[in-house]
């Protein structure tokens, strides 16, 4: 079974982000980059499916600048077999739909039985690409999955999606799109052997023309990035616990009208 895992390289969550001079993006100097955490769940799940079935291929794919190769290497070190790097000036001002179109075109060429995404990329936090790709391909999809089992004949998957108050378990014919929620698994750390082996694995560069894609312009554009408005300074309620609690509850009621 061939499984494709689209991953995104994002700034480490603990990084201080600064707004770039044009106010449209962030200043990327000095940023530490990581594979978006949800995408690690997706890679891990793909590897587990392959291991369980005793055969198959896991292909990591990303659309991004040159530095994104490092993220692909991390996935290869975890155990992915090979990677595709979608990189082209045509995609420079991509929005999620542009990314989805490029990925859908790559998926058509690769023809995997399953595409496993992260539930959202933790930089733009759009959570849009997986469902968009599913729609462009005309495939069913289940978002925010917490568990999955591929049928023995490899024709369908039972996947549990997290919804408010329940887990809904669907039987979905393959090929389909799934997106991983935290809790699906615990991603492995790459072993030294994995890291060494990753250096020899293939990362194929893919241009827009290879996928029959042209620069079609973003549908959603960034007007400006802004810093958060500062929260009004808070107040430490002083005193012994009993006094402090009384005063806190009074403030919540009378000053903040929060209860």
């Amino acid at each position, binding site marked *: 079974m061939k499984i494709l895992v689209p991953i995104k390289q994002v700034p480490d969550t603990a990084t201080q982000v600064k707004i770039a001079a044009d106010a449209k993006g962030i200043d990327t100097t000095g940023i530490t980059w990581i594979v978006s955490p949800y995408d690690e769940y997706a890679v891990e799940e793909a590897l587990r499916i392959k291991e369980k079935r005793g055969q198959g291929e896991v292909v990591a794919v990303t659309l991004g600048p040159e530095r994104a190769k490092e993220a692909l290497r991390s996935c290869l070190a975890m155990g992915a077999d090979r990677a595709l790097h979608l990189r082209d000036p045509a995609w420079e001002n991509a929005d999620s739909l542009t990314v989805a179109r490029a990925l859908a075109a790559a998926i058509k060429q690769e023809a995997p039985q399953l595409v496993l995404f992260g539930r959202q990329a933790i930089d733009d936090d759009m959570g*849009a690409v997986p469902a968009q790709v599913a729609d462009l391909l005309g495939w069913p999809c289940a*978002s925010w999955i917490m568990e999955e089992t591929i049928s023995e004949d490899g024709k369908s998957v039972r996947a549990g999606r997290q919804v408010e108050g329940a887990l809904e378990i669907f039987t979905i014919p393959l090929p389909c799109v799934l997106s991983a929620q935290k809790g699906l698994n615990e991603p492995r750390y790459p072993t030294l052997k994995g890291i060494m082996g990753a250096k020899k694995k293939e990362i194929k560069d893919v241009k827009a023309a290879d996928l029959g894609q042209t620069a079609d312009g*973003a549908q959603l554009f960034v007007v400006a990035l802004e810093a958060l408005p500062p929260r009004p300074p808070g107040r430490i309620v002083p005193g012994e616990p009993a006094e402090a609690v009384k005063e806190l509850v009074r403030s919540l*009621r009378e000053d903040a009208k929060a209860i």
Partner: protein
Amino acid sequence: MASAFWCIVEDDRAGRPKKVTGEVLGEGARLARQLGGQVEAVWLTDKATDEGLKQLAEWGAARVWLLENPALAPYRGEVWTPALAELAAAQTPQAIFGAVTARQRELLARLAARLGVGLAADSVAFSAQDGKLVATRPVYAGKLLSKVGWSKPPWLATLRPNVFRLEDPKTGAAPQIERPAVAISQGTMTLAERKEEASTGLPELTEADIVVSGGRGMKGPENFVILEELAKVVGAAVGASRAAVDAGWRPHRFQIGQTGRTISPKLYLGFGISGAIQHLAGMRTSKIIVAVNKDPEAPIFKVADFGIVGDLFEVVPLLTQEFKRLLEK
């Protein structure tokens, strides 16, 4: 009608729209007034109720587009998207709004791809600039705000629950119902099983007005009882930090933060939580933040409106008592 602001109805699967739909309709109505147009509800369901339809009218929906078909339950994107896209192609609405809920965040993304338009997911504010809509959405773990615009309509967006106000109810308003003929496919995925979460008897985390949340400082799963008692008194949901979840003290669905749920309650009370950036990402848009931590240097105090430096095991029972006294009055 070209200037309709559509709001997709989120219901309880039993024919009653949820409060978040009132919030989406409220914001839709305000934007429609500013930009010209009217707010309308679009309800895809296997079974609507009269009271539900009336509720939508009272929340301000000038019209309700009702697609009622057994194949629409449970929600499946592959079935809902083509139906909604067909209706949108015929009616050309100006905007299509949904709520940030399990089904709608997926639905609106699929729909955006189908219609070839932009989607502003998880928006927390809107403004009109030169007759066009601009959405504000938190990015980078809520460290920055991104203002985004659309190249062409319809403007698709999902709205974070608990952030937008309901309009004053139009009491007694009668719904104007349209039942358009739209093809509904049978779909390919089938529901095998629905595992309900054990009911806590407390409100849903993302819908609650008050959230009480515990971190590593709770020291063990058994101690969450004191937070549950507090929650019961004030009608709150109980959440947790990732440290508490990863330790196995609380299930994943209760995790608040960047890799958990995003909440915007009126009141958030955090106990034994340090306030890591990834935790703040999930609760920063709460209206009032209260923190109880024994470390005066804990970063959570930087975003808290009120703080108590102290031992939570002393403070929580006192708080429960004091709230009880207040609410019994």
